[in-house]
């Protein structure tokens, strides 16, 4: 085990240690620890005002967590020390402590409200493809027929106020002419919704496309993408998500809901600008999943397992709070009129039997196989879209995919309906009055119609035709989702994978049920199933299949089980769910260790250091550091030798993000590390504010100016931007430890020394490239710093 890493040292120790040379050596001795970085310099230079803009980051750059944590602690210390001064300062400190809770509450409220809006609008627009409600245009099909008095079960969906398009335009509801008219209107609406969605995304907020979860994972691990969580992205994502879902494309709205919630969190955290954004984003993603599935605990676990990078206990409590607030707001909006949060909430408590574990595990294997296949196919398609001319026509691509989806989906009633409704129908077991095709079993007693609840019955012709249609729907959905995920509209992955799993599960369930009926004298069935008793619940198989497929593609474990458990409320189904999810994860991992989100991160080249992977190679630090043997020597700055002109030329000629500062070229002893952005801002600022700074002014990073001849221009002091405690390792440090340091501390770069002299530098990008090389992947695919 590595020695405990010291990350916090008391400020008072370092007060006057800057000029004593032996403390540079003690810096080396503490090379695995660190001190309070720039606060030392701030304390000593408190007479100089801070330069505006120093400490901020460029777009598409990585955050240095050590620096951020130091700044945060410094701010806390300042507030705490002033707390006792006056009542006003006390109130400010209280406000600072409570601002975290306020931000999280506001985020939960906003997420719940937006989710309610999205649900209601998506439901309505979905039914707009079929027809309109003449009495009240804002009602969808179900709400329009809410008050109708048709009593017979077969006609429960028909009511006089709801008119399909064929009825409105042609005047007749049945017949081939009206079928074609309905078909045509369906395609027309689907295409127009898809076209509107992609146009809005392209014109107003290009960052609103896709799922959002890979980018949020990267942002939470410390990468800056400006505008990704902004106001316009929020508005466009909300509006176009409804349009994309309503256009019948094979996508869901869970991933985009997480993005929407994180946008809300980000916007609210600007109102309290000093609060840690990371906690708010973790809490917001928990709230997003919570409103998508109606599963607050599952949302928190999802945030912990999938999205967040650093998840201390404080974040756990805040995430839970945000998820609960969001779920509560959504429930009080009550979009579906039944006080349930999600459309496919089912509650049955029929028992399952031990022999059913075999088909459950088979469903898990199917889920893993499908997950691995989907990841490979989708990444291949996305890569082709990125690199060839295919990707130059995004609008055309969306229209084409929407057209194909609409044309193929209309004839099959299982693909024509909303995917959430399909999942609900598959999850629901056949009740006493179900009139769907799936439940048309042949009744056994034809005499007195004595009604026993759901005995095992032979399948009627309705069930067989339903099975065929379901098989076709399965193949269709598997193919179309590959091309739909990654389009330039907001697209989620949860609902399509759950639909695929539910279809597969239901088919297997009906097959097992028929097997149990026709061969009830087999050993397996005779033990557990009585003749004429309800034995197999195909709805349960659908649920297990949905969980297995979702687990196979995202490789979630705990969070998935908890989400499905909260969806169904059945504690007794935890064992089958866990068996299926674990099987699908093992089978999927046999083909590739990454889930779909990690695969997309790698495809885009984001600098994401995965905390779940282990680094097991035996390379040393000096094999990874830059400069290599063939590279030009390390670009360094001397502490008091440079002029402004030389400094500017170093910055202009190279493209490095930071430069180590050394005492002199002969000794190569390390002083600190200065970032490129900070240097440029400081020079500009000095040019404006201070007089007498010219091109040949001397630049010094020390506390006192070097002795200069009398007629030299005024020297420029850049000590305040210097990081005096950069992390260093020796060149013989094993890479395992270096990778561990980077992960645990969130470093961006680390200096390499040999015998106390500066030798080179390792950045996060170098580590990612090295890991890619070790895994035989293309190291040049890591694009960002």
């Amino acid at each position, binding site marked *: 085990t590595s020695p405990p890493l010291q990350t916090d040292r008391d400020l008072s120790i370092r007060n006057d240690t800057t000029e004593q040379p032996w403390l540079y050596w003690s810096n080396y001795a503490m090379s695995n620890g660190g001190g309070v970085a720039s606060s030392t310099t701030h304390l000593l230079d408190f007479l100089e005002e801070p330069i505006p803009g120093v400490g901020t980051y460029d777009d598409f750059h990585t955050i240095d967590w050590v620096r951020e944590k130091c700044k945060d602690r410094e701010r806390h210390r300042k507030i705490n020390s002033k707390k006792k001064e006056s009542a006003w300062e006390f109130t400010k400190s209280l406000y600072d402590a409570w601002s975290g809770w306020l931000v999280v509450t506001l985020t939960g409220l906003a997420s719940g409200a937006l989710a309610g809006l999205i649900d209601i*609008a998506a439901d309505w627009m979905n039914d707009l493809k079929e027809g309109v409600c003449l009495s009240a245009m*804002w009602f969808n099909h179900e709400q329009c027929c809410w008050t109708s008095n048709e009593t*017979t079960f077969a006609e429960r969906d028909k009511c006089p106020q709801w008119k399909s398009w064929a009825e409105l335009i042609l005047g007749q509801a049945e017949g081939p002419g009206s079928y074609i008219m309905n078909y045509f209107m369906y395609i027309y609406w689907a295409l127009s919704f898809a076209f509107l969605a992609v146009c809005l995304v392209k014109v*107003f907020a290009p960052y609103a496309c896709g799922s959002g979860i890979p980018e949020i994972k990267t942002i939470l691990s410390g990468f800056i993408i400006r505008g990704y969580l902004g106001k316009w992205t929020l508005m*466009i994502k909300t509006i176009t998500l409804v349009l994309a879902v309503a256009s019948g494309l094979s996508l869901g709205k869970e991933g985009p809901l997480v993005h929407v919630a994180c946008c809300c969190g980000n916007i609210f955290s600007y109102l309290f600008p000093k609060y840690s954004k990371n906690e708010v984003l973790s809490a917001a993603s928990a709230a997003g999943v919570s409103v998508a599935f109606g599963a607050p605990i599952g949302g928190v676990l999802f945030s912990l397992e999938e999205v967040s990078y650093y998840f201390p206990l404080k974040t756990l409590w805040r995430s839970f709070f945000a998820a609960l607030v969001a779920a509560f707001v959504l429930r009080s*909006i*009550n979009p579906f009129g039944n006080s349930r949060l999600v459309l496919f909430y089912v509650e049955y408590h029929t028992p399952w039997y031990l022999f059913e574990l075999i088909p459950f595990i088979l469903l898990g294997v199917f889920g893993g196989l499908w997950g691995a296949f989907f990841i490979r196919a989708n990444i291949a398609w996305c890569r082709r879209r990125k690199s060839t001319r295919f990707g130059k026509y995004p609008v055309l691509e969306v229209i084409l995919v929407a057209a194909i989806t609409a044309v193929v989906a209309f004839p099959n009633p299982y693909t024509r309906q909303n995917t959430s409704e399909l999942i609900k129908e598959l999850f629901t077991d056949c009740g*006493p009055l179900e009139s769907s095709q799936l439940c048309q079993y042949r009744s056994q007693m034809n005499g007195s119609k004595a009604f026993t609840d759901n005995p095992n019955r032979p399948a009627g012709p309705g069930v067989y035709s339903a099975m065929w249609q379901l098989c076709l729907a399965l193949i269709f959905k598997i193919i179309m989702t590959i091309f739909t995920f990654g389009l330039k509209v907001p697209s989620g992955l949860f609902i399509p994978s759950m639909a695929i799993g539910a279809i597969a599960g239901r088919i297997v369930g009906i097959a097992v049920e028929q097997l149990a009926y026709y061969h009830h004298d087999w050993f397996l069935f005779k033990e557990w199933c009585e003749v004429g008793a309800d034995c197999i619940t195909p709805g349960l198989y659908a649920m297990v299949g949905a969980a297995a497929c979702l687990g196979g593609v995202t490789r979630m474990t705990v969070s998935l089980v908890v989400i499905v458990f909260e969806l169904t409320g059945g504690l007794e189904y935890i064992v089958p769910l866990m068996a299926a999810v674990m099987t699908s994860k093992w089978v999927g991992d046999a083909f590739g260790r990454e889930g779909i989100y990690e695969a997309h991160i790698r495809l*885009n080249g984001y600098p994401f250091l995965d905390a779940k992977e282990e680094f097991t190679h035996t390379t040393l630090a000096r094999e990874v550091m830059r400069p290599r043997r063939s590279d030009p020597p390390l670009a360094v700055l001397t502490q008091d030798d440079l002029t402004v002109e030389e400094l500017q030329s170093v910055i202009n000629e190279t493209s490095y993000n930071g430069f180590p500062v050394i005492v002199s070229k002969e000794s190569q002893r390390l002083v600190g590390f200065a970032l490129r952005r900070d240097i440029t801002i400081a020079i*500009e600022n000095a040019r404006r504010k201070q007089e007498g700074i010219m091109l040949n002014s001397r630049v010094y990073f020390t506390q006192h100016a070097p002795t200069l001849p009398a007629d030299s221009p005024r020297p420029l002091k850049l000590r305040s931007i210097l990081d005096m405690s950069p992390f260093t390792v020796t060149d013989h440090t094993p890479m395992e430890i270096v990778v561990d340091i980077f992960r645990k501390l969130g470093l961006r770069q680390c200096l390499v020394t040999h015998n106390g002299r500066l030798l080179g530098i390792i950045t996060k990008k170098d580590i990612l490239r090295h890991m890619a090389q070790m895994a035989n992947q293309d190291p040049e695919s890591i694009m960002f710093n």
Partner: protein
Amino acid sequence: VMCSITFQIYYMVNILLRTHNQMKTYLLQNSEDIRCKCICPPYRDIEGQIYKQNVSLKDCNCLHVVEPMPVDGKDVEAYCLRCECKYEERSSGTIKVTIIMYLSILGLLLLYMVYLTLLEPMLKRRLFGHSQLIQSDDDVGDQQPFANAHNVLSRSHSRPNMLNKVEHAQQRWRRQVQEQRKSVFDRHVVLS
């Protein structure tokens, strides 16, 4: 001080509750928004039926809702035991407000989009003529680190004029969207 704070909190909570009640009565003013739905399975030779009525929660049971009762006196109890009655409440006001809000925002965005893509270039061409139509896209990036610094520092100065501010903000926003569009659609750098 504590006294006045508690009084203020009490007052605010009171107002909140009152507005909540008012909103609820307004949204529920449509009496059709509540219903009791009874599902009765097939019994002997009667087919399965669904009965719906707008009754309140206390009247939501088989005897009140199932009318006309298809069986005679002694079978009523057996029939009613099989029926499942559920009370449902929806809020049509919420649905109406939500849909109208959504459609109006969508309409505004569409108008703005048409303006940005079609009308504005036309207007600009008419006002400024062809010569100024060529605008160079400056590639703001690492090639001009000092220009970037210039941008960062100049943001801290305040603009006195309100109209200038709006114009400036709009220009900045459009530049940002253009950058985003380049990285997502053209260079395929982010969000493949």
